[in-house]
């Protein structure tokens, strides 16, 4: 028992170190791209007409007059304390500026994931049980078409079909009223949610289908069937148990798609979230906001991957058996 607990603690410590390392790599590369490469950022931001005094003031404000390494560690230290910095464009703290947007997008991504993940598993498993059947073909075809399209094309097509030109059943924009809770404006967020689900669904469905199909044609499932175990039990107890661990990684990847997809989808619907906020920040060259949000998103995804690994471990008895024992 004690040995097993030690193993788990060791695994957690190792995983935590890897997470921190990954986040450091991302933060460093993002910092290097935004701070170190361009020669004259303040002049680019203020324009050619700016006076030298204005340039010097902005440089000082951005801390660009100090050595790069000092800037890097101050920024990193701030991020570790949860301080996202001050927006270059507006002078307000990034947390104040982006906080409501982060909450709105987190809500949307959670709801979209809550629809996408079960739907993808249901569709993928159903298609895998009858290879070459109508559902299998329909899914492969749809997946192929949707995977070729950028998110905004699907979002605009939805607006044209459901909100303007063909039918007019839903509002074309999702400009939320910040004074009312988001769930009380449900009619506004239906179309963006549909767009998010449609764009994120194909990849996961396809990979669930492939994994389940492989599992159903494996030796141990064949033996379970030959032993007279009912098909339903074979599917749930024998096949799906092995599908969960590899699929968890792709579930997190799907959440990554959902987050990346919000940038274009929120812009199409004028939804006040982190995606459209990022697009605006790039327009105004608000470097601090972009750095902080990029690292924040990376941190969330890295944490989710770690959770997926841990849950996958619980589902894989072989992997958590102490090394060398039970031979």
């Amino acid at each position, binding site marked *: 028992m004690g040995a097993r607990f030690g193993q788990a603690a060791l695994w957690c410590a190792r995983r935590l170190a890897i997470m921190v390392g990954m986040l450091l790599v991302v933060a460093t*590369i993002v910092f290097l791209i935004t701070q170190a490469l361009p020669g004259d950022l303040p002049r*680019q931001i203020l324009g050619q007409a700016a006076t030298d005094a204005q340039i010097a003031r902005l440089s000082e404000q951005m801390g660009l007059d100090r050595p790069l390494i000092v800037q890097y560690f101050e920024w990193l230290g701030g991020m570790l304390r949860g301080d996202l910095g001050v927006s270059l464009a507006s002078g307000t703290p990034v947390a104040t500026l982006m906080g409501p947007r982060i909450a709105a997008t987190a809500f949307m991504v959670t709801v979209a994931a809550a629809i996408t993940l079960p739907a993808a598993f249901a569709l993928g498993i159903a298609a895998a049980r009858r290879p070459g059947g109508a559902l299998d073909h329909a899914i492969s075809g749809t997946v192929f078409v949707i995977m070729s399209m*950028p998110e*905004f*094309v699907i979002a605009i097509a939805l607006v044209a079909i459901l909100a*303007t030109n063909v039918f007019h059943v839903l509002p074309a924009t999702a400009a939320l009223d910040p004074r009312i809770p988001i769930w009380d404006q449900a009619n506004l967020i239906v179309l963006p949610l549909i767009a998010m689900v449609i764009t994120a669904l194909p990849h996961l469905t396809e990979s669930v289908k492939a994994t389940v199909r492989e599992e159903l044609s494996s030796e141990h499932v064949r033996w379970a069937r030959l032993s007279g175990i009912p098909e339903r039990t074979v599917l749930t107890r024998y096949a799906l148990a092995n599908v969960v661990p590899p699929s968890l990684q792709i579930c997190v990847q799907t959440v990554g798609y959902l987050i990346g997809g919000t940038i274009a989808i929120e812009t199409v619907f004028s939804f006040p979230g982190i995606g459209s906020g*990022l*697009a605006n920040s790039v327009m105004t060259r608000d470097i601090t906001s*972009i750095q902080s949000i990029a690292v924040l998103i990376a941190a969330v995804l890295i944490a989710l991957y770690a959770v997926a690994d841990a849950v996958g471990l619980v589902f894989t008895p072989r992997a958590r058996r102490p090394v060398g024992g039970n031979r």
Partner: protein
Amino acid sequence: MSTVHAEHSSASTLRRMARDPRCVAGVLGCIVIVALALIGPAVAPFDPAAFVGPAFSPPSGGVPLGTDHLGRDVLTVTLNGGTAFLAQGIGGAALALAAGLIFGIAAAISARPVRGALAFAMDSMVIVPQILLSLVVIAAFGASPTTLVIAVGLGQTMPTARVIRAAALRVAHEDYYLAALAIGENPVQRVFREILPGIAPTVLVELGVRLTASFVAIASLSFLGFGGGSIEWGRMIHDNQGGLAIQPWATIVPVVLIAVFLLSVHLVRDGAARALAEAMRR
């Protein structure tokens, strides 16, 4: 001897693709869109900057697709908006592949600590959504057509590098590579004589993947308004989306062109990958 074999197999790959109806449809779609983009500027009825009527006016005799948000002819702008899109897409894919080859091969054959560090950096960076990385690059350098290509290329460098690394690692474990190492070939010779020929099929498939992804990324980023002012299909959609209810053609026409083109590229890539896999099995 080996060239004869390679020619034979590439000819049979092409024959296989020609027999695949989906692949043929994809090739036709690509030809139509590329022809439209290349010949378009020459046959457009107006100057792309000319104002021919009030903003968002519906189709009429002289302007078959109506006008856009500035009152320009939608047909003319459409015919002029394809060249930049195609050129930027190809540029982004080429950059991603070149950078991916450098990082990927370096991560496979350099000294152990460098190898490990590069692999760890790749695994970390692929977690960040590609479009987010592209936005970071655009924010740093400012929106321009060149930045757009760099942003898309860099955004896809790490996923490409991972694929190349995996293929190069396989070659690095082959006997012929170990033999080259033993007879003292220098790293440059090893890369050009052993690694590159060994990973050629992977590079070819990856080129297809990167082209599709790069066109998608270019379309998305110029839709977001980061194309730097050039006339371009993604930008048209961005500018005219507000008039969707009164003058849908200004938005729908570029949306359909982008959709048809991306679907066609995907069909060709898929057909080519299938044919290549079949040819390799023989």
